[in-house]
């Protein structure tokens, strides 16, 4: 539902059905709602069969990359020679994204159930749920739910532990997350080896996002065909997706719609449109790491993996950031660059230097000391930051810069030419 607002008739409420319903948080309440039935069933199934069902459903990872979940699970060794692990990515730190928080706050058992099913499918005996350090409230509810469900012995031989992060966006990157669990600095690892071969503690590991795993019990219950049938546009994007909408809309919140839903309708109908007297200027459809769309692109965009790519951006994590005509795009792009500069783990030169210089040049422009050549310099820097580093944080910094200069060049030029007053001090 459009939490914290009432559900909208055009939502397809699956994962968010119990958002706002405190009884669903308790073990008893969850069982009353049919919870843990699918886990009991899954534990009696052949792992390969479970993987087939998830493959058939078309479920793709909701953490950002959209990798097919069943396929990812199938990369784990079939014949188990070493311990297997499941890591759950609850680090949710991508600006614009706040859906996993709601899943953990309202339906912690949905995540626990989905995680245990996934663990069985990949033959893992241990699950680590990595929750960002700032998520004190989700932690409390997850901790309580885990204690209750463990006492009821629903997980069979599977052990689930919560692991608290300590403030580092980069720990959402899968191999950085594994290093962080191991008690190390959260530096991403060079791949290969991929986690299915050597993940956490050097053992075969699968890592999935919270929303991905929360969908799994529903797929088992209602069938792969049901899930696959939920698709309004591209058949490669199936099921429902939670979109976190924030910024300049009347009703910010989490909205659950079927894949392929028009972005325009999400913004103007479900979210109540712009503030009075304001018009849409730009939108980042998939969390801050994806390119910015202009108004026309936004209003003609269909929300699925393929639809957003067609408009020049990516679905990412489903964090929709809305900017109206009052927005200073140059300033906001600088804020995003500053975010990446702050969060770079500093292993790769292109990223460490590139994010810092990008921020510096943008600040210089905002201080009224930019030169026209700075725009080419920024594009040049961005090119050197794309596709050349250990992880894609570097590319993520370049995305808003390149797309921003392409679509809102006049705003940069206004600062440089002195048509706009500087907004920061040199």
């Amino acid at each position, binding site marked *: 539902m459009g939490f*914290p607002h009432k559900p909208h008739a055009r939502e397809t409420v699956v994962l968010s059905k119990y958002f706002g319903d405190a009884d669903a948080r308790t073990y008893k309440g969850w069982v009353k709602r049919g919870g843990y039935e699918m886990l009991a069933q899954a534990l009696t199934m052949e792992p390969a069969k479970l993987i087939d069902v998830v493959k058939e459903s078309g479920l793709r990872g909701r953490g950002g990359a959209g990798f097919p979940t069943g396929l990812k699970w199938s990369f784990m060794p079939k014949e188990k020679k070493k*311990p297997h692990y499941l890591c759950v990515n609850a680090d*949710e*730190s*991508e*600006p*614009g*994204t*706040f859906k*996993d*928080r709601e899943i953990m706050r309202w339906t912690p058992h949905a995540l626990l159930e989905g995680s245990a099913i996934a663990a069985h499918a990949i033959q893992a005996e241990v699950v680590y749920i990595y929750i*960002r*350090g*700032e*998520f*004190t*409230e989700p932690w409390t509810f997850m901790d309580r739910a885990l204690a209750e469900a463990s006492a009821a012995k629903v997980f069979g031989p599977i*052990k689930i*532990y919560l*692991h*608290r*992060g*300590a*403030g*580092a*966006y980069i720990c959402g990157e899968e191999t950085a997350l594994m290093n*962080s*669990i*191991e*008690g*190390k*600095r*959260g530096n991403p690892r060079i791949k290969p080896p991929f986690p299915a071969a050597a993940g956490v*503690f050097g053992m075969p590991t699968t890592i999935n996002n919270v929303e991905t795993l929360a969908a799994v019990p529903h797929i088992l219950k209602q069938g792969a065909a049901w899930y696959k049938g939920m698709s309004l546009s591209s058949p490669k994007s199936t099921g429902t997706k939670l979109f*976190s*909408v*924030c*910024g*300049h809309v009347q009703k*910010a*919140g*989490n909205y659950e719609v079927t894949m392929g839903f028009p972005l325009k309708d999400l913004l103007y109908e479900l979210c109540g449109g712009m503030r009075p007297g304001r018009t849409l200027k730009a939108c980042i459809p998939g969390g*801050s790491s994806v390119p910015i769309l202009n108004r026309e692109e936004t209003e003609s965009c269909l929300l699925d993996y393929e639809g957003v790519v067609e408009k020049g951006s990516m679905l990412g994590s489903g*964090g929709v*950031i809305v*900017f109206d005509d009052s*927005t200073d795009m140059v300033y*906001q792009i600088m*804020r*995003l660059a500053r*975010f990446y500069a*702050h*969060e770079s*783990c500093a292993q790769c030169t292109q990223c460490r230097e590139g994010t810092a210089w990008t921020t510096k040049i943008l600040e210089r422009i905002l201080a009224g000391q930019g030169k026209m050549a700075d725009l080419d310099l920024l594009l040049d820097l961005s090119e050197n930051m794309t596709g050349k580093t250990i992880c894609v944080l570097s590319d993520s910094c370049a995305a808003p810069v390149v797309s921003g200069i392409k679509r809102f060049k006049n705003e940069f030029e206004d600062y440089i030419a002195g048509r706009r007053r500087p907004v920061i001090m040199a």
Partner: protein
Amino acid sequence: MSVTAHPTPAGTEAYEPVFTGPTLEQLGEIIARYPTKQAALLPALWMVQRARGWISDRNMAEVAEVLGLTPAYVKGVVTFYTMYHQHPVGKHFVQVCTTSPCNICGAEAVTKAFLETTGAKELGATSPDGKRTVIEVECLGACGFATPVLVDDDFIESVTPDKVPELVRKYK
């Protein structure tokens, strides 16, 4: 990594260890969750911070000793993560999100209100009465509830400048 740390580096005062009695037991339970002792490092650092408010060099040496690591290694990890305090902070620690989505909804005015109301001179500084430290942080993962503020372990949604004085009074 089985180098024994010197238990009491710099400083001559007696050091009161964090990990004794029930705390040590609790750490033992946490260690048992992982195949390596090292993996209990982040949880151990959280335990220190909860007990002492921040993590000193001597605390790091103790953690190193307990987990069979070196103090330098522990420091390397502590400095990577922004939520571990390497210096004492005010009685209440206020973290305001100012990343772009919150920024366009007025987060900078919220930070300003916190600085003015608490009397903390600048970001990262503690108010003269030692009660409150105010910092800006990057996205808190609650962008639809702009502006979220984390005061100690309390996550507060939808803070606006007019609500700041009341909040400051609440955390005295």
